[in-house]
C-alpha cells in the first residue's frame, strides 16, 4: 500500500477536474507504469496484484482491466497448449493487449441471441468473421475503443453449413507498431457514459475479416481442418468463470458500500446541525434518529456482504478443486446461488450508496464527497455480468426445481434443504399455523429461522402459482413469464435468508468477546431491519404477529442507540486509506470544511478571476439591453 501511495510516479491532479480524454490518458499512463512496476517488484500473486492495482487506480476502473481480468484468464482457461505458446507470453509481456468482446448492441445477457458470425472456410482453413447487422456490432467491451490490439470475440460458429453456437476467437484488430485498425475492422469508442470515464469502452464491426483456423480457442470444442466439428465434453465448465466473476462482484458491492458508509458516518460525526435540546449547541447529525436509521442498517449490510463475499470466494475455491478432479455435482447450486447473490448484493449496495450520499445532504452531491464516483462505478454491476432480474430468475429456476423435487418425494440437500420441511408441514392439518416459528427477536439463530420460513413460503407461493398457470394449459414459457414477479420475490427472499444465515453463522467464529458483541448487534440490526422493511411478508405468512412487528420496529430503534457510540470505530475498521476513499467529507482527520474550500479553488472554472464568458456573452448583453 505504502509502496504505491508514496510513489511520485502515481501522483496526479484530482481526476474530478480532468476531461474524459485526460482521465483516460492518466489512467493509461498509470496502468502502463503499474505493469512495469509489478514486474520490477516481482509481484505475481493474483491477490497481491489486485491490491496493487486498487491502490494505483484508487478503486477506479482502468483501461487494462479487461486485458488482465478477462483476456489473460480466458487464454489460460480455454486455449490449447499450442495457443498458449503463441499468445500467452506476448500477452503477458503486453506486446499483445487484449479485450473480451462478447456483448453486442442488440444483445447482452441473453447470449444465444448474439449475431456475430464466424464461418469456416475449409479451402483456406480460415474463419470469416462478420457483423451482419447494426445490432450485431460489438458494443461496450472495455479497452476496445482505443487501447487493445487484439480481442477475444464471441461469435456464432458456422461450419459445414450448420450453426454450432457461440465460440471464442482470438482476433487481431490493430496493426502492431502503428496501432491502426486492420483492414476489415471498424473500431472506436462508444462515447461518454455514466462514469467509467477512464475506460475506452468500444465498438467493433467486422466485414469479411479472416483469421486462421488456429485462432479459435480450442481447448474444449474444436473445428478440424476439413470443417468437422468436435463437441466439448461438458457445457457446465463455462459456469466456472461466471461464478468466479460474480463472486468478485459481491466483494465489489461490499467494498463500495463500506466506503460510502465510511464517508457518510465520519461526516455525520463532524457535521453539526439544528438543535435537539433547546439552548444547547448544535448536535452532531449522527445523533438524530433519522440519520442513524439511514446509516446504521447500511453499515450492518456492509458487514453482512463482506461475510457473504468471503464465503462465496472460499466456496468457489473449494469447488474448483472438485471441478479439476471431475466432480461437478455442486456447480449448479453454486451457480444459482452466486447469480442471485450477485443481483441481491449489487442492488442493495448501489441503493445503499445513494442513501449514504443523500445522508450527506448537499455536499454529498459534490464530486469532492467521493460518493458520486463510488455510485457510478458500482451501479453498472447491476447490469454487467448478467442483468440482475435475469439473474434472480435463474436462481428462481433452481429453487422451483428443488421445490418440485421435494414435492415428488425426494429430499434436497445443501442451502435449499429448508424446502424439505415444507413438505413435512403440509402433512399436518393446520398448515399455516404449523409454519409459525416461535421467533425470539433477540436471537440471531431464531431470526434465521424466521427468514427461512419466509423464503420457504414465497418459494412455495411462486411454485404453486406457476403450476396454476401451467394448469391453464399455458405453454411453459408463458406460464413462467406470468409468474416471474412472484419468482423474483422468492429469489430475493431466498438470498436474504442466505445472507442472514451466513452473518449469524460467522458470529461464533469471532473469538474476541467485544468484537463478537458488536458484530452480534450489527447482525441483529441487519436481520430486524430487513423484517421491518418487509413486514408484509412476515405478517401475511403468519411468521410474526402484529405485536411482534411492533416489537421488531422498537428493537431496531434501540439497536441504533446501542450502535451509535461504536459507529465511527466500525467504519475505521474497514481501514480505507484517505487516498483510496478519495473523499473530502470522509477524511480520517475530519477536517472537512477547510479542505472543501481548498479543493474548490482548484476547479477549472476558477482558473481566472473573470471567466471568458463575461467578455463573450454577459458584457455585450448588458450593454445592448
Amino acid at each position, binding site marked *: 500500500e505504502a509502496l504505491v501511495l508514496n510513489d511520485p510516479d502515481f501522483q496526479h491532479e484530482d481526476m*474530478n*477536474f480532468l476531461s474524459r480524454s485526460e482521465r483516460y*490518458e492518466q489512467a493509461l*499512463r498509470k496502468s502502463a507504469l503499474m*505493469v*512495469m512496476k509489478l514486474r520490477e517488484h516481482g509481484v505475481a500473486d493474483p491477490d497481491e496484484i489486485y491490491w496493487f492495482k486498487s491502490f494505483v487506480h484508487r478503486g477506479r476502473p482502468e483501461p487494462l482491466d479487461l486485458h488482465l481480468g478477462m483476456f489473460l484468464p480466458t487464454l489460460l482457461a480455454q486455449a490449447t497448449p499450442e495457443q498458449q505458446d503463441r499468445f500467452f507470453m506476448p500477452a503477458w*509481456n503486453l*506486446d499483445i*493487449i487484449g479485450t473480451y468482446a462478447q456483448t453486442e448492441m*442488440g*444483445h*447482452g445477457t441473453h447470449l444465444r*441471441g448474439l449475431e456475430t458470425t464466424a464461418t469456416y472456410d475449409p479451402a483456406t482453413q480460415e474463419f470469416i468473421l462478420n457483423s451482419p447487422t447494426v445490432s450485431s456490432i460489438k458494443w461496450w467491451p472495455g479497452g476496445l*475503443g*482505443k487501447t487493445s490490439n487484439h480481442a477475444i470475440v464471441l461469435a456464432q460458429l458456422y461450419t459445414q453449413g450448420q450453426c454450432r453456437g457461440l465460440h471464442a476467437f482470438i482476433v487481431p484488430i490493430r496493426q*502492431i507498431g502503428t496501432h491502426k485498425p486492420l483492414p476489415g475492422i471498424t473500431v*472506436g*469508442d*462508444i*462515447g461518454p*457514459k*455514466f462514469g467509467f470515464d477512464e475506460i475506452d469502452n468500444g465498438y467493433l464491426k467486422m466485414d469479411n475479416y479472416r483469421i486462421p483456423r488456429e485462432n479459435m480457442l480450442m481447448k474444449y470444442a474444436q473445428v478440424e481442418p476439413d470443417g468437422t466439428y468436435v463437441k466439448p465434453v461438458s457445457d457446465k465448465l463455462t459456469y466456472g468463470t461466471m461464478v468466479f466473476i460474480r463472486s468478485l462482484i459481491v466483494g465489489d458491492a461490499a467494498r463500495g458500500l463500506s466506503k460510502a458508509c465510511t464517508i457518510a458516518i465520519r461526516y455525520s460525526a463532524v457535521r453539526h*446541525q*439544528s438543535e*435537539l435540546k*433547546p439552548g444547547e449547541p448544535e448536535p452532531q447529525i449522527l445523533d438524530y434518529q*433519522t*440519520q442513524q436509521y*439511514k446509516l446504521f442498517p447500511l453499515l450492518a449490510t456492509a458487514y453482512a456482504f463482506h461475510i457473504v463475499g468471503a464465503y462465496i470466494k472460499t466456496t468457489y475455491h473449494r469447488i474448483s478443486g472438485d471441478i479439476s478432479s471431475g466432480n461437478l455435482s455442486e456447480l449448479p447450486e453454486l451457480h444459482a446461488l452466486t447469480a442471485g447473490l450477485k443481483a441481491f448484493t449489487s442492488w442493495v449496495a448501489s441503493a445503499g450508496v445513494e442513501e449514504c450520499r*443523500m445522508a450527506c*445532504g*448537499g455536499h454529498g*452531491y*459534490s*464530486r469532492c464527497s467521493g460518493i458520486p464516483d463510488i455510485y457510478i462505478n458500482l*451501479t453498472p454491476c447491476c*447490469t454487467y455480468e448478467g442483468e*440482475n432480474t435475469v439473474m434472480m430468475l435463474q436462481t428462481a429456476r433452481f429453487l422451483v426445481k428443488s421445490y418440485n423435487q421435494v414435492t415428488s418425494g425426494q429430499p434436497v440437500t445443501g442451502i435449499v434443504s429448508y424446502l424439505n420441511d415444507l413438505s413435512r408441514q403440509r402433512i399436518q392439518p393446520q398448515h399455516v399455523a404449523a409454519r409459525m416459528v416461535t421467533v425470539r427477536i433477540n436471537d440471531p439463530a431464531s431470526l434465521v429461522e424466521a427468514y427461512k420460513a419466509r423464503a420457504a413460503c414465497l418459494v412455495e407461493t411462486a411454485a404453486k402459482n406457476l403450476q396454476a398457470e401451467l394448469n391453464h394449459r399455458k405453454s411453459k*414459457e408463458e406460464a413462467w*413469464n*406470468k409468474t*416471474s414477479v412472484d419468482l423474483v420475490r422468492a429469489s430475493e427472499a431466498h438470498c436474504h435468508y442466505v445472507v442472514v444465515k451466513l452473518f449469524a453463522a460467522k458470529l461464533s467464529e469471532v473469538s474476541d468477546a467485544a468484537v463478537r458483541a458488536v458484530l452480534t448487534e450489527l447482525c441483529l440490526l441487519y436481520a430486524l431491519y430487513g423484517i421491518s422493511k418487509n413486514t*408484509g*411478508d412476515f*405478517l*401475511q405468512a403468519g411468521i410474526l404477529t*402484529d405485536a411482534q*412487528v411492533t416489537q421488531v*420496529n422498537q428493537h431496531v430503534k434501540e439497536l441504533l442507540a446501542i450502535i451509535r457510540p461504536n459507529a465511527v470505530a466500525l467504519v475505521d475498521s474497514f481501514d480505507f486509506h484517505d487516498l483510496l476513499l478519495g473523499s473530502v467529507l470522509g477524511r480520517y482527520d475530519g477536517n472537512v470544511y477547510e479542505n472543501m474550500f481548498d*479543493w*474548490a479553488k482548484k*476547479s477549472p*472554472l476558477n482558473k481566472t478571476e473573470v*471567466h471568458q*464568458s*463575461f467578455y*463573450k*456573452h454577459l458584457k455585450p*448583453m448588458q450593454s445592448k*439591453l
Partner: protein
Amino acid sequence: SVNPDLASERQTASFSVEKLTAWLDGGVENTRTRRAVVEAIECDPVFSRENQYFQSQNERYEAAVRKAVHLQKKMHEMGWTEDGPEYKYISRAVAGDVAFLLHRIFMRSISMLGSDEQIAKWIPLASQYRLIGSYAQTELGHGTYLQGLETTAVFDITTQEFILNTPKISAMKWWPGDMGRSATHTVAFAQLYVHGKCYGVHPFIVQIRSLQDHSLCPGIIAGDIGPKMSFEHADNGFLVLQNVRVPRENMLSKFCEVQPDGSYVRWGSQKINYFTMTSVRISLLLDEVILPMMKACTIAIRYSVVRRQSKLKPGEQEAKILDYQTQQEKLLPQLAAAYAFYFIKDYLQELFDNGYREIQKKNFDMLPELHAFSSGFKAVITQYCASAVEICLRACGGHGYSLLSGLPSLYTKILASCIYEGENTILLLQTARFLIKCFMAASAGQPVPPSVTYLAAVKPRKCPAKNKLDFLSPDIYTEAYQHMAARLVSSTAAKLQELIQSGVKKHDAWNQCTVQLAQAAKAHCHYIAVKNFAETMEKLETQAGIQKIMKHLCDLFALHGIFSNSGVFLHDGYISGAQMDMVTASYLDLLPIIRKDAVPLVDAFDFTDKSLNSALGSYDGHVYQRLYEWAQKSPTNEQMSPAYEKYLKPLLHSKL
C-alpha cells in the same frame, strides 16, 4: 419511417393520443401554444443540445450563459412576456443547461419580500439584465436548518449601513447557482444584529462583482465550488464577505424593517422570509422533477418495445422486452406515478394560489398548511421520481448507462432536487409536525383544514373487499390509504404522548419518534396523491376512452403502493392476508392491460426528439443506428489517440 416494432404499438391505442395530450395541457389552445414555443426554440441553432454529452464543464457553462443571453433576445423577438401564455413553456422547450435560473429566484425573492420602493428600484434593473442576481442562503456548514446560518449583518447606526461578515469557514455561502462566475448581485441571508441583539435570519441585497469589468468587489471572495454529480453547466459558487457594507435600504423589508434609529419593526410572521422557498418548491416540481421523470418513462418504454431479447415462445421471434412481466412491473408503475404526480402538481398550485392571495392581504392562516404540503410533497415526489428514473435507467440494460441514452443526466439532475430547497427527511418531519398538531386539534374537537379532517376519524375497521375486482374500486383503495395514513399519524402521536408522560423530555421524545413521524408524513402524501388521482379521473366522464385508461393507471398507482408497502396495510388487520393476495392478483392483472397502451401513453406526453435528446427514446425507434452514429461523433474517436504515442507505444515495445 418508424421502426415497425414501435409503429405496431401505436396502431392498437385504446384512446386518442392527441386528445389525451390536449387534456394534459389543459386544452387544445395550450397544446398549440406549447408546440409553437418548442418549435421556435428548437429550430434555433443556439439552443441545440446536440453536443451536450461531449462537452467539458467549462464548455457547458459557456453554452448555458450563451443560451440564457440569447433567450432574452428570442423572447423579445417572439413577443413572449413573463405574464404571457408562452412563458411557462420556455423552460420545457430549452430543456435545461441554461444559466440565470437563480436570477429569476433573485427577482422572485425581491418581489415577494421587498417593499414597494425596493421592487420599483431593483426589478427593472434585473429584468433588463443591468445586473445579474443570485440567491445566497445555504452555507458550507448549514443548509435546511436556516436558524443555524452564521453569516452576520450588523447595523451601524452612524452610517445607516449593514456590515456583512463571514465570521468563520463554515459560514461561507456555498452552492448558490450563478454565483461562482456570473452574478453581480445576490440576496444574502444573514443573522441580523442591531445594538448587539440578534433578530434572526434576514435577506440583504449585496453587490458582489463590478458592473464595469466584472471583477470582485472589495471585501468579496467568490468562485466556483467545483464539479458536481450533474449541473456541469451551472456555476454553483462560494462567497466570503469581509466587512461588506450595504445601505439600510438593502434589507428586504416588506414584512420587517430596521428603522434609522435602529428600532426593529415586524409585520406578520417571521416565517414569511422562507416563503420564497415554498413557492420555489412548488414551481420546481414540474420542470425539474416531474417532466424529467416523464421523459425517462418515454425513453425506457419506447426502447422496451424496440429491444427484443430471448424468446417467450419456442420457435418464434425474440420477444419485445416489454412483454416480460418483470419489465412491465418495473416500468408501468412508474408511468402511473408520472401521471399521478402530474395531477398533484395542479392540486398544489391551486393550494398555493389561494394561499398567496391571502398572504398578500397579510392573512397568514394558510401558511402552515401550505408549508406542510409543499414540504411533504416536495420530499415524496423528488424521492419517488429519483428512484423511478433509476429504475428506467436500469431497465434499459447496458445502454441505459451510456450518456447518449439521456437517462444518466435525467437521473443526476433529479437527484439534486432531493436535496436543494430543503433536505427531504427534514421536510417530511415538518409535514409530520403539522399532522400531529392537526391530529391533536381534531381529537380535541377543534377545527382543522379540510385536507386533514380525516385524521379525526381513526377507528379499528376492516377493509370490505370480497374479491379481487373489489380492489379496482377507487372507494375501496382510497379508504385503505386513508385508514393507513390516519393510523400511522395517530399511533405516532400516541407514542409521543406515552414517552412524554413517562417523563422523557419533549425534544428527546420527538427525536425517538422521528422514524415513525417521517413514515406517517409519507403515508399522508401518498393518500392525498391516490385520492387526487381518483378525483381527477372521475371528472373525466365526458371523455370515455381517456377516462378508461386513466382509471387503469389510477388503479395501478394505488395497488402498486399497497403491494409494495403491504406491511403497513396488514399491520392492524385492516387488510387481511387473503385480501392482500387479491391485491397482488389485481395488481398483476393490470400490467398486461396497461402494457397495450404503454407507448401511446408516453407519446401523449408529447416530447420532441430534441427535447428527449436520447439515442434510445426517439419517436421513430431507430435505436441502434442512432447509437452508432452518435458514438462516432465522440471526440474520443479522433483518428489516433494521443495516449497511444505517449504511453501505449512504449509499453508495447518495451522489453519487460
